[in-house]
């Protein structure tokens, strides 16, 4: 019997502060044991419990793509006890992870379709994983258009600036980055994600939409997707809930009879529509 509560030992390979407010920090973790690395197979959208001995565990979406071998990336918003400690951990220190946990984005459904990715704030983590995965040549060839709309409150709060710059230059995808309020150096778009979506107006035919962001963004973006005639079964989102075990035992992350940790975190709006409105 495998013990799903025992963390896999990892080492911090690199750390990076992502945002101007220093609240978001990306950890790049490497495996300490080769067998763990071999066994660790994941798909974008899955998450891990990051485990710090003496502090506890907290769940984070995997921000790196399965195509980026050798390490895993997690971006951590400093909020509570565990996340504060994760902001203090330094390169070379050891820690643990449990995972990969949960389901993933329905990548197999995307074959031959357009993909629209809408992200807001620091919920962009697993979307980074998804985008990089989809852009890998072998995967890219199976897809039609890729459109990414990403918004943050201000330019300083945008994540993954290197990747954004890279994607901006690519011809095989369309990236629209927007901020709620620009600053003197900001040359890009200013506007809220729902409005930018309307402006970009991607076709809903043959398109899957993946949307992750703060509840307020989701609340206003969803109706716009409706206006654009996206059917519920082709809109996916990733939910967040307080979690502990990550494997559907400890109870707290349920929405109706489903557990966000085990049956999610990715749900289609069709699924959510059938569940109790207990998730916001």
């Amino acid at each position, binding site marked *: 019997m495998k013990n*799903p509560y025992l963390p896999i030992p990892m080492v911090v390979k690199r750390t990076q502060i992502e945002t101007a407010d220093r609240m978001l920090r990306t950890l790049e973790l490497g495996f300490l044991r080769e067998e763990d690395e071999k066994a660790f197979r994941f798909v974008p959208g899955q998450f891990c419990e990051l485990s710090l001995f003496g502090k506890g565990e907290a769940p984070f979406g995997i921000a790196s793509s399965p195509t980026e071998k050798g390490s895993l990336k997690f971006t951590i918003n400093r*909020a509570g006890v565990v996340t504060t400690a994760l902001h203090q951990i330094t390169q070379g220190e*050891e820690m*643990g992870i449990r995972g990969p946990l949960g389901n993933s984005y329905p990548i197999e459904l995307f074959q031959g379709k357009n993909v629209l990715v809408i992200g807001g704030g620091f919920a962009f983590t697993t979307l980074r994983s998804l985008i990089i995965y989809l852009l890998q040549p072998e995967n890219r060839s199976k897809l039609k258009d890729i459109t990414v709309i990403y918004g943050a409150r201000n330019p300083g709060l945008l994540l993954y600036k290197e990747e954004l710059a890279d994607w901006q230059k690519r011809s095989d995808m369309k990236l629209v980055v927007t901020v709620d309020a620009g600053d003197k150096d900001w040359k890009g778009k200013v506007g809220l994600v729902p409005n930018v979506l309307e402006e970009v107006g991607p076709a809903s035919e043959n398109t899957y939409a993946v949307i992750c962001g703060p509840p307020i963004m989701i609340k206003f973006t969803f109706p716009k997707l409706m206006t654009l005639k996206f059917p519920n079964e082709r809109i996916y989102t990733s939910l967040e809930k307080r979690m502990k075990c990550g*494997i559907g035992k*400890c109870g707290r992350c349920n929405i*109706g*009879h489903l557990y966000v940790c085990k049956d999610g975190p990715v749900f289609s709006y069709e699924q959510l529509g059938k569940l109790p409105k207990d998730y916001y």
Partner: protein
Amino acid sequence: MSLKPATLSKKEFVSFLKQVMQTYDVIAPVELAEGVSAYRKIESPEEVSLTFHNTQKSAKEGFFPQSEVMFRYEKEGNRTQVTSTEEVDRPRLILASRPCDIQAFSLLDQVFSAKEYTDVYFLKKREMTTIVGFACNQPLSTCFCTSTGGGPFTREGSDIFLVDLGEVYWVEFLTEKGKALSKNEFLREASEGDAARAKKLEEEALKRMNVPVHLDGIETKLEQMLENPIWDGIHEKCLGCGACTFLCPTCHCFDIADEVSQKGGQRVRNWDTCLFSLYSMETSGHNPRPSGRERTRQRLMHKFNYFPKNFQKIACVGCGRCILYCPVNFDIRQAIREINEK
């Protein structure tokens, strides 16, 4: 091939148990204070007290203790040595668990062994444990196990089954695990008369279970009731303590926390309950279940709708503990009635 039932004289109970304890760690009802009992690993047979209607804390503690170390860790420089505590080295025996609690074990099995992930802490104990069921000669008026698929003399799930016949216990061996105990030298062959007495007690006990609680179709009924105004009223007197859920044999929610000691520490899981606001509170301060209304609803929906959806059985075994010990007399039977009447 089933073994013949035996009897055990109460005068020899202590000697019987001493012999059992040579092989097994025994977890048995212990009276913690007068009228208050719970299952504890015993050090001597004298600790056992079988004079309860039902214990306050349920026998689930035998597999799922209120606090349980999952692993210990020790830090040496940059390295951390982790030692899991999942292994169970000695066979265990849960003595005198009421049939309701035993029925609950089978529900907990579903959760902890659910296919994707196995909860080794629960399952290893479960595998290593022999269960001695204990018939309820005198079900209480708050008992409704016959409405939840059980009964005061239900043998299902027991490896051995005891009936209190007054001077002696009637002992049935139901499984291979149970038969291992049949060689205990203090067991005597049962007589026809003993069998008749056990049968009579069973009939009498069943007769006492005369107030059914209607649970047929409750899952479907609740399906449409998430936003029903019924929840505004049902929760109102609930104080939001965890007494009902902590005493409940089927409740199984837990929290995981690290406890630090000087050299290292341990990762521990502790029972938790959906009735605490902290249970679903997110770090941001946002709580998807902000008030007693949502939390009480969660408790009842989980028992009677969500759990059956996942495991085809309701998560209630009719033991009546939540009714007996609620500080404000929240009666789950009344809640069920109200739901049915909607």
